[in-house]
């Protein structure tokens, strides 16, 4: 009797496991298929692309790469360099100043401490586009269009990154360390830079990746501020590709442009996926 129940349990377990794997495989297929097609199509010439659909790669990858890289209207290497510069600067500023703000609120007891904390938490939910009108207007008045400062400096104030850093500090930073440093005569800034920042390295690394990615992918504000060809970033160029006369395009080149636009992030992700996925949860759930 008991034996039969056991076998029955085992059979249902095997069935539900099989169903679970089948579901996971279907979902994964959905996620990967469009990117697979992107890579395959980036290896085919325009004529091969017109000829029909195939799942197998062809041998025009480097020809497409050369064509895309040296295209006269869309300067993708320049765009990638621009995006890279903005993204690195934003990532450094965001993580450093978010850590600094989090440390300031975590360690010191001052009158506006609670206010400052709740203020940042409250503004976290406001959509960034709400400030776009005023922001664009000010930048036009200050003649800061076609300039990277308005794309980099605002990243000093990033409520979400601040929240992540604050939670990280709560879990890793014993006050004794700060007090010991004070006794040893370390100034407050030196304590932060030389003792606290190294402790926060894992959090900083994760947030650097996230802010790099979101800056690299950012389209809304840069598209409103950058119109000089040599200043444009990758997402603007991709959108430009869409608005160009489609029928005249070498499609192999178009697929290559798209591949180049996502490649840096893809490579970083494949190398660091474990840390990135762990980082998704660490900051956001407890709140």
């Amino acid at each position: 009797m008991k034996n039969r129940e056991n076998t029955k349990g085992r059979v249902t377990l095997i069935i539900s496991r099989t169903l679970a794997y089948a579901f996971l495989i279907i979902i994964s297929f959905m996620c990967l298929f469009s990117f697979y097609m992107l890579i395959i199509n980036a290896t085919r010439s325009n004529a091969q692309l017109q000829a029909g659909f195939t799942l197998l790669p062809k041998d025009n990858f480097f020809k497409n790469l050369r064509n895309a890289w040296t295209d006269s209207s869309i300067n993708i290497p320049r765009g990638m360099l621009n995006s890279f510069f903005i993204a690195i600067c934003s990532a450094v500023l965001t993580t450093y100043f978010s850590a600094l703000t989090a440390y300031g609120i975590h360690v010191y007891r001052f009158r506006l401490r609670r206010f400052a904390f709740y203020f940042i938490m409250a503004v976290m939910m406001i959509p960034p586009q709400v400030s776009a009108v005023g922001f664009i207007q000010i930048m036009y008045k200050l003649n800061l269009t076609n300039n990277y400062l308005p794309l980099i400096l605002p990243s000093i104030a990033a409520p979400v990154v601040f929240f992540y850093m604050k939670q990280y500090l709560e879990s890793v930073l014993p006050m004794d360390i700060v007090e010991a440093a004070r006794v040893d005569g370390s100034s407050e800034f030196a304590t932060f830079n030389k003792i606290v920042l190294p402790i926060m390295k894992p959090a900083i690394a994760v947030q650097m990746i996230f802010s790099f990615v979101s800056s690299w992918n950012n389209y809304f504000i840069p598209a409103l501020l950058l119109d000089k060809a040599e200043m444009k970033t990758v997402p603007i160029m991709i959108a430009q590709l869409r608005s160009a006369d489609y029928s005249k395009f070498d499609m192999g080149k178009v697929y290559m442009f798209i591949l180049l636009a996502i490649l840096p992030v893809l490579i970083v992700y494949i190398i660091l996926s474990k840390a990135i996925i762990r980082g998704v949860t660490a900051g956001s759930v407890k709140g």
Partner: protein
Amino acid sequence: MKRKKLKESGVSYAKWGYIFILPFFIAYTLFTLIPQLMTLYNSFFENYRDGLMQIGPNFVGLKNFVTLFSPDNTGSIGMLKYMGNTIILWVLGAVPQVLVALLLAVLFTSYRLRLKAQPFFKTVIYMPNLIMASAFSMLFFTLFSPVGPVNQVLVSSGIAEKTIDFLSIKVSVRALIALMNFLMWFGNTTILLMAGIQGIDQCLFEAAEIDGANSLQVFFRVTLPLLAPILVYTVITAMIGGLQMFDVPQVLTNAKGTPDRTSMTMVMYLNNYLQTSKNYGMAGAVSVVLFIVSAGLSLFVYNTLSKPYKEETKKRNRI
């Protein structure tokens, strides 16, 4: 002893708190707060460019808002239409997103199933979240364009008689946008919900199992109620993200919201005022509405979703 000494020496570190948080608040004031106030201010002014002529800024009171909510020459109210589009596009993507993510999170954390290759699956499902939305959208455009591979397959296999222009059909454009949003966000939601489930006391699952609860009962009676706060958080953030929907429909439809502006979102509308006519007055009014809607919706969802959970905790506290 040391601590006492420090206190006695009367050194106050409070000023350092202010110094450390100062850069954040300066940057926030300059780049967000003042622009927000200016946006609000702009919404009461007539200020746009008509060809080469600059009109305004002239104070017009609430006229921009009135214009925003009055029917245009085709008889439809633009703002309401775009708000409706945004909500439809968001719901179409978010409902499967939350359901699939819930299912995946339960599967991944299931003690009974103990699925293998989890890191691989998690890596795959999270990947679209990091991909540049505009590039992802451009990719879907090329795949689904009249000369793209999807049409090639449909025609050569005889499923379709002639090429289908997916981008001129309301249903397919909306479905494509929803599909992309779903693909980009369900992995993220899965990971958040998984962490939530892992945060639930394991004893509760074991106790339920000993009491003879089946998987469905465990899910509805234990997992779901205890997951409620994280579910609320996830839905609110997804919703605020949904209201900002821009890159995907903008690139897919080349800023036009084709067909007949049925896929034009609120932020695309805002962008249209900023990009083409430099109409700061109307753009300001759209932003103010966007702000009010997002604030209102998050309060609403927070209240409705957290109520059952609150009652549950109240009940438990009473016992």
